[in-house]
């Protein structure tokens, strides 16, 4: 796993797309994949309780490939199936992806359109954070996102299927601290992306609004609201 390099503002130069880049993305994602696998196991066990079939679990984790959307859908799962409610909840919990995709625009806009939109299938909080770190630290290989995404997908889908197939032996991942892996990586990436005192204002605003939204609003609105407030504060200060 690489070091956390100091970040820089990207210059508009062409991106490469190589096997080495994909392998690098995969390698840097491996520790998170272990955590994703245990999350998938939990999903699989809960899905069995909700009477989802093995093939249905495999299809959902492959096509939706989103822990937050899938856990939310599982929480709403009932007979008869509340299709509209599940779809609305899926949309709401996924809205944060819009911000992640927008933040990648400076780099992904330099790729052929089909390749960029193909890569975006693999966009998640984790793959976004690692890929953004790769680009901001000077990396220029878009295949990083492919390698990172495939690694997360294999772990997530594998975990979901294994959990559904026979995971009742599963223990609580919080018991081993594995639930904290994502938080630890995000903290480390945040520290590594510090560019100077100018970051203080957007980060503080983002954190405070996220804390307030997390306290008083349901679901994951805190991500969208905190990110918008923090980046908005940075914009108002910088673009006068």
């Amino acid at each position: 796993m690489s070091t956390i390099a100091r970040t820089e503002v990207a210059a508009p130069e062409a991106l490469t797309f190589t096997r080495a880049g994909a392998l690098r993305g995969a390698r840097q994602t491996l520790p998170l994949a272990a955590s994703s696998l245990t999350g998938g196991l939990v999903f699989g066990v809960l899905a069995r309780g909700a009477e989802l079939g093995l093939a249905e679990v495999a299809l959902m984790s492959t096509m939706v490939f989103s822990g937050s959307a899938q856990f939310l859908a599982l929480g709403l799962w009932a007979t008869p199936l509340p299709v509209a409610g599940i779809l609305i909840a899926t949309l709401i919990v996924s809205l944060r992806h819009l911000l992640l995709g927008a933040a990648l625009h400076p780099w992904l806009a330099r790729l052929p359109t089909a390749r960029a939109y193909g890569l975006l299938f693999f966009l998640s909080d984790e793959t976004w954070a690692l890929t953004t770190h790769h680009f901001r630290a000077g990396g220029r290989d878009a295949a990083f996102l492919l390698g990172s995404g495939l690694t997360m997908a294999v772990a997530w889908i594998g975990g979901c299927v294994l959990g559904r197939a026979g995971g009742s032996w599963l223990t609580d991942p919080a018991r081993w601290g594995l639930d904290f892996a994502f938080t630890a990586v995000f903290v480390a990436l945040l520290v590594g992306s510090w560019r100077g005192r100018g970051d203080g204002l957007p980060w503080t605003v983002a954190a405070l609004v996220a804390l307030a939204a997390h306290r008083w609003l349901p679901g994951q609105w805190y991500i969208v609201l905190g990110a918008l407030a923090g980046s908005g504060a940075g914009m108002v200060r910088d673009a006068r």
Partner: protein
Amino acid sequence: MRAEVAATILGMALLTYATRAGGLWLMGRITTTPRLDAWLRSLPGAILAALVAPAALAAGPAEALAAALTALVAARTGNLLGALIVGVAAVYALRHLL
């Protein structure tokens, strides 16, 4: 497989992908201005701070301390894997101690 379940999963997949693709698509349709550039420069850090703040600061003393240790290791060594291992080990130990 039940048809209704398959259709629901397909709908979920389409909506999720639409949000994944939508950010890039929208940004490609807006002409960039200095304001927009300034917003984009602040956005990645703001997303990370918003993602991490509740899990690091509002989950409890064990998580907050472990997050502080993780940040310290990341700042000192710049090693992502090292910071991850220290964070997970710290939260494991602190949850038992506190």
